[in-house]
Structures are given as structure tokens and as C-alpha cells.
């Protein structure tokens, strides 16, 4: 049963529909990516998921139950707009956040110390937040989200503002958490991250879920019609009518197959004329799917 189950939720602000009849499910122990262009309704969706706002229609279920505020004790939420108390010491801040999530002060302190070691900011524990760099503050917010060891982790743009080293640290930690059975959902613009980490995705555009499912299922919906060939010899097979958008390089060609074209037949034809080192039907990247889905829609 899904940890998160959104059933046709909608939300409008001042006559502008932010989310329209959006449904999605997140299975336990998986990493889920919420994708979409700016203003697509990702943050509005996440806010309804954590009860920050209520949907105008539709239902939100967490942990297989209709949403209740006390579910949030089991959720770690990192909002997109995040801040810290500027004049508070890092350790006090983390203990406070831990306590709000139901931990006692001693446990919160122990865990905060462990996490700070892990995130390499242990030496800043006694500094005030305003003395820290933005990246450091990001890490503290990240720790605050995870301190109470939530079953469900929801992060809105977790890697924005982090340098590549810290992004990879974050990814590593997310993967570890998943391997411990935690369910993770995050929104992002970074397709490479989603492709690398996520088991399932939902692509949102103009408030609607335009693409949803496991990564494999989503990709399989898009035909493998891009071909990369590496060859030596006669290149006349490249004039085949099934080929379009051809780009030629010395000993290499990239092209797309027209709809309904048979890749296997083309390979046989090519092999008759030239020596083929590589003939690959390339899977479309998520970025291509994103552009194709969202861009195509906008064009239409």
C-alpha cells in the first residue's frame, strides 16, 4: 500500500488553478521524483501533502490513512522556502526542531551531534546561524528534517544552492536512507539527479500530472527511436527513407527513425554495406521526455 496517496487533488488561489485533479502514489521504500517546470504546481502539491494547505477537492492519504496532523511526526519536510533562527546557536536550533518533532532534548542533542559529524559541520555547532555560509545553513536544515528519523521524507528542491560536493553527499545520504526502508520524495529541476536516484516519477505541468509511474514504465512509453551507429565503409545505408534528423560524423552517425520504421531491418541493410561496430537504439533521456512532454504541450 502506498505511503502517499493523492487522489484527484485540486487547489486554486484567487481564481488561478495551481493544481488540477492530480493523483499520484508513492510506494514504501522508494525514491520518488516530482518534476515540472517553474510554476507547474509542485510546491502547491507538496504543501497539500504535508497539510500546510488543504485541497479544494480530492483526498490526501498518508501511511494508508486519511491525512491527520499527527502523521507529520512521521514525516520529515524540507520546504523550498526555508529559514533558520538567525540568532540561535546551531545545536540549540537542532535540539529545538527535534523537540518539536517529539524527541526529548537529550536524544535530539545526541542525534544532532551525530548528524553534524556526518555532514562535516561539527565544528560549527556552537556558532550562531547568521555566522554560517548559505551552504552550511542548507546542511543544518537538512539535518533538522531528518533528526527525528522520519519514515517519509519530503524535500522541495533539496539540492538548490548546494555545491557539487555537497550535492553528492546529499544524494549519498538519500540513497542510504532508502536502503534503510525510508520513503523519499523530492521535487527538482535536475533531470540527471532524478534519472540517477528515482524509482518513480511524476511530471507535473500546469497543475496536472502529465506523466506518472516507475522510471522504467515512463521510459518505455517513449519509443526507442534514436539510433547511434559506428561503422566503417559504405555509408549509403544512411539514405534509407526511414531515417530522419541525420547528423553525420567521421565513422559515426546519429539519427531518428521515422514512426513505424523497423530498426532491425535497417541494421541488416547497413550490415550488408558497411562494417558495423555499434548500432544502438538509445533510450530517450528524461530530459528529452521532459522537453517533449512539456514543450510539446506548450506548443500545441
Amino acid at each position: 500500500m502506498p505511503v502517499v496517496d493523492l487522489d484527484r487533488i485540486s487547489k486554486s488561489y484567487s481564481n488561478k488553478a495551481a493544481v488540477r485533479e492530480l493523483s499520484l502514489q508513492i510506494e514504501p521504500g522508494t525514491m520518488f521524483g516530482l518534476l515540472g517546470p517553474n510554476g507547474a504546481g509542485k510546491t502547491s502539491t507538496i504543501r497539500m501533502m504535508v497539510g500546510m494547505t488543504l485541497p479544494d477537492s480530492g483526498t490526501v492519504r498518508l501511511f494508508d490513512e486519511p491525512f491527520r496532523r499527527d502523521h507529520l511526526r512521521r514525516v520529515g519536510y524540507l520546504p523550498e522556502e526555508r529559514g533558520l533562527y538567525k540568532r540561535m546557536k546551531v545545536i540549540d536550533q537542532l535540539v529545538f526542531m527535534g523537540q518539536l518533532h517529539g524527541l526529548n532534548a537529550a536524544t535530539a542533542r545526541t542525534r544532532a551531534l551525530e548528524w553534524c559529524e556526518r555532514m562535516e559541520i561539527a565544528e560549527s555547532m556552537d556558532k550562531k546561524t547568521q555566522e554560517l555560509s548559505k551552504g552550511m545553513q542548507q546542511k543544518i536544515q537538512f539535518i533538522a528534517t531528518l533528526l527525528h528519523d522520519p519514515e517519509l521524507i519530503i524535500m522541495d528542491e533539496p539540492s538548490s544552492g548546494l555545491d557539487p560536493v555537497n550535492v553528492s553527499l546529499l544524494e549519498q545520504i538519500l540513497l542510504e536512507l532508502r536502503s534503510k526502508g525510508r520513503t523519499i520524495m523530492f521535487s527538482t529541476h535536475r533531470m540527471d539527479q532524478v534519472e540517477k536516484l528515482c524509482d518513480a516519477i511524476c511530471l507535473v505541468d500546469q497543475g496536472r500530472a502529465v506523466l506518472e509511474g516507475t522510471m522504467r514504465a515512463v521510459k518505455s512509453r517513449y519509443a526507442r527511436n534514436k539510433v547511434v551507429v559506428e561503422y566503417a565503409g559504405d555509408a549509403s545505408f544512411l539514405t534509407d527513407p526511414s531515417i530522419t534528423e541525420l547528423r553525420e560524423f567521421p565513422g559515426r552517425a546519429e539519427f531518428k527513425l521515422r514512426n513505424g520504421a523497423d530498426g532491425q531491418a535497417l541494421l541488416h541493410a547497413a550490415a550488408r554495406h558497411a562494417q558495423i561496430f555499434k548500432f544502438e537504439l538509445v533510450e530517450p533521456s528524461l530530459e528529452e521526455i521532459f522537453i517533449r512532454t512539456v514543450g510539446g504541450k506548450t506548443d500545441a
Partner: protein
Amino acid sequence: MRDVLLIARREYLERVQSRAFLMMTILFPVMIGLLIGGSLFAGKLSSLGKNIAIASNDAVLAHQVAAEMESASTPAKAPEVVAPASDADRRALNRRVEDKTLDGYLWLEKKADSLVPEVNFVSRSAGDLFSARGMQSAVDNAVEREQFIKHGMSGAEIADMPRHVDIQTWQIRQGRLVPSNSLKSFFGAYAMMFLIYFTVVFYGMNVARSVVEEKTSRIFEVLLSTVEPQSLMAGKLLGVGAAGLTQMAIWLMLISAIVGASAGASLRTEGLTAYGIHPQQLFFLITYFLLGFFFYSAIAAAVGASVSSEQEIQQFSMVIVGPLTIGMVLITYIVSNPTALPVVLLSLFPPCAPIVMLLRISSQMPPAWQIALSMILMVLFIWGAVWVASRIYRVGILMYGKRATLPEMLRWMRYS
């Protein structure tokens, strides 16, 4: 409830541990002390060492005025007497004033056709009020004394004559005559009004500021994902409020320690009753102060939730405490008509209750149910204000940027 206390604790500690709090806590009483000490010192200075002469064509009058002035001045200093004085003496005195060997002189001229002498005071400075006031009563007393003597009274008889009568005022309370002092009984209510007024302006606005700060630092969304907005608001109110009350308590202690020597003595002998405050009233004073404080702070919180910058709060600070001035404007009407219907209604109306009910209590004890009702209404209003504030806060922060219009705010109430 745990959340409320956690939030309150954080807000309290952050404020109490700040350098600004420490500075204000120490500096304010020092400033007050300097102000009081300074004005006392200046007063002493202006009455000290004044070199004044008394000149008159009537030597008896001149000596009597001199004696009065000597007995009234501390330390006793006998003014120089020039009597009987001629026009030549007057010119000499003028010269002495000019070349600063004399600070001023009093010229008393007895006319044959009048009981009252013509009196002129000549000095270098234009408005030497301090010496003028002292001289006025000295001359009055001397002229009065002269008249009594003229009518055959002896000096001893005049000294024994009663000069001032106190009117003792009484109130009937539960069939018993209780001494009251109509002036003193206002004292508590007046003090109360200023106390609430200034604490709201100073500390109530802190609540608003702390709400705005949370909005601008964008920490609220993290908080709201664990804490209900009502708990957040209630916690802020309690924490910021407690910090303000702590500071006031420290000030009161420091000030009473500084002023202690004089005020302490009368407090020990007469207790607070010396200031028109009875133990029972003290209870009401504290209760209504706390209710009033939290009431206005809750409204300030709602204001903080609906604006987007600290500057905007300033515009509201005076408006918020507006209803308090109703009590001030109507004070004589309330005290003389404590049971009139408008007064009773005002004393139940939460924004006015702390002042008006307190004034009623100090002039004539209202029925217990009215006091209870006013307190219950205030508590309900505080709760309501917190609720409204938390709704505005929760929705307002999710679409921040511009200031909300009233229709928008009403719509926010319905949102969730």
C-alpha cells in the same frame, strides 16, 4: 500544549539572552535614576546660595517676610533686610543686582490707603519661578500675620492657629464605612492605564515584530509542518510576553531599590494602601494587567501576521492601543457614575475592560458576576485573536509580498 511551551521557551530565552535585553534592562533604570537624581540636584542647586535682599518702607513687614523666607529655605539662610528703604537704596540695590553682588531683591511698598503692600521682585533672570514661588507664600504669610497682630492676636496664638484642614473621605462597602481617598483611588487605575499602554507599545509590538521576523526569515514553513499555527501564535505570545514581564519586574525591583530609601519607609508603615491600592485591588490590578497585556499583544500578533515588513507595524502601534484612551477620556464620568449602563457595558467590552473595570472597582465594587464576565470575555477574545492571527498567519505567509486588504483577510479566515 507541549509545542506551545517549547515555542514560548525558545522565544523567551532568545530575548532574555540577547545583548539588547541586558543593555535595556540595566540602562533604563540607570537613565531614570539619572533623570530623577539630576532634576533633584538641579532643584537644590537653583534654590541654594541665592543672595536675595528684602527692602521695604515698613521695617516690621520686611523683617517678617525675611523670617518667613528663612524658615522656608533649606538650609536656613536669612535674607538681607534693607528697611526702611529709600529711593536711593533702591538705586543702590539695582546697581548691586547689575554687578552681580546680589541675585535679586524684593521691594515691598506699604501704601497708607491699602492693607496689602505693593510687591515687586527684581532680578537679572527673566523667569526665576523657583524663587518667586517661595517668596509668594512668604509674603502672604507675613501680611496675614501682620493683620492678625493688628487685630490683637499674640505671636503664640498665631503659631497655634490651624492652617490646613484635611477632608477625610469614606466609602460604604458592604454596610461598613471604609476610609477612601478619591484622589488616591484613581492612582491605581491611572498607573494601570499607563502601564498597559506603554507595555503594549513596547512589548506588544515585539510580538508583532517576532511574527514578521519569522515571515521574513522563512522559517515558518518548517515550523508549520510540525506545529499548529494556533500553538505557534500562543507560544509566541507567552514567550515574548514573559520576556517583557521579566524586564518590567527587574525594573520595578531596581527602581524601588533606587528610590527605596524614601518610598520604602512609607511602604513599610502603610503598605500599598498609601498609594490607594488595597490588597484586593492589587489582585485585580495584576489580573487585568495580564489580561490587557495579552489581549493587545494578540491583536499585535494578528497585525504582524498581516503585514510584510517591520516598518509597517509602526503605523499600527498607536492605532492598536486606541481603545485604551476611551478609559482615559471618560475617567471622571466613570468614577462618578460607576453603575451607569454605558459604563457597565464599557467595563465588559474587552478592549476597554482592563481600564474601565479597574476604575469601577476603585470607585465602587461592581457585582462579582460582572467582574467574572469581563474576565471571561477577555479570555475568549484573546483566544479569538490568537485564532484569527494564526489563520491570517498561516494563509498570509503562503502568499506573501503585498499587504493584505480587508476583504482578502476575511477570505483568509475561511481558507485553510
